[in-house]
């Protein structure tokens, strides 16, 4: 596999992960149910854990430990050999497993198209419209402050 192809695949996986981790578990489940999912095995059973979240003041200050966050992770392997990994904030283990499954499907030549069109694309549309709606709602309540210059006399 050439480096370009490899980078393309990585970008696709990254894009899928960005959508899936922000989506609702029930929705991923219902969309996955609708498509024909191949046989897979749990390489790493879904589990909960903690990660240390680090931050930088102002985005470029010295790093500090902000606090711990709960994450769930899982890894699956399709019968054809693709490995999928799933990480998500929170304690929803099934969501982590479904994300791992989607990650594996995105890499498989056979299922990449189906999972993109039936699962990821609809979720992405929904995520974007939801974001736009929130942004619009927030924008509607915006207040512009003017500094009034005290007039003379």
């Amino acid at each position: 596999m050439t480096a370009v192809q490899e980078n393309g695949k990585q970008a696709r996986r990254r894009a899928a992960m960005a959508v899936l981790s922000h989506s609702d578990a029930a929705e991923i489940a219902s969309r996955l149910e609708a498509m024909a999912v191949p046989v897979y095995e749990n390489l790493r059973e879904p589990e909960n854990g903690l990660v240390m979240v680090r931050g930088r003041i102002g985005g470029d200050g010295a790093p500090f430990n902000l606090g711990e966050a709960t994450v769930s992770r899982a890894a699956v392997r399709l019968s054809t050999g693709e490995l999928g990994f799933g990480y998500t904030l929170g304690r929803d283990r099934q969501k982590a497993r479904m994300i791992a499954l989607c990650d594996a499907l995105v890499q498989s030549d056979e299922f990449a198209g189906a999972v993109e069109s039936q699962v990821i694309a609809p979720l992405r549309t929904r995520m974007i419209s939801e974001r736009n709606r929130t942004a619009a709602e927030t924008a509607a309540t915006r207040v512009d402050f003017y500094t009034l210059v005290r007039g003379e006399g």
Partner: protein
Amino acid sequence: MTTVAELPAGFADKVLSAQSTFRSVMDAMARPGSVQRIAAAAGVPAAMMRGTAAIALTLFDHDTPLWLDPSMSATSDVTKWLKFHTGAPVIADSSICSFALIGDARSLPSLDRFAFGSNEYPDRSTTLVLQVESLTQGPSIELRGPGIDGVAVLRAAIQPADLFERLKINQTLFPRGIDVVLVADDTIVAIPRTTRLVAKGG
């Protein structure tokens, strides 16, 4: 990047499998010479026995440096599997490892290449996990020590043949020393540092 790899799975039920394996290892350590069975099922890399894999998944983590003998590290399978499932660092220096996995017990290196711990911290020693042919058939070995009522008789085909002669260093080193876990398929026998060989039969 690994996309297609033959990486065997870990425990199907992490918590219960790890608990039952821990119990087996603890019982084996408490009753030296007794044969314990490991019931938990897990995927196993080619060079490993079932018991070794279960012990690895139960006892190893990022705080336990591991040393692998040449038969274990011949292919990267075992290292990859251990790294993925346990996160334990595999190191080249056997004198600071917490566990040493010996796939081919015949070529067990000299014991002084492993950690004996210190008098203040005798627990900072290496535990050898030795894969042997059989723990139910073979020449009889009589053992004595704490945890054994009288004499325990073990019938086992153990390599290297002079294992117990080598373990005599535990007598002089105490409280420092080396603990050994013998594994044959899914059965284990522990030889902690306090156990002494009484007699060896045919």
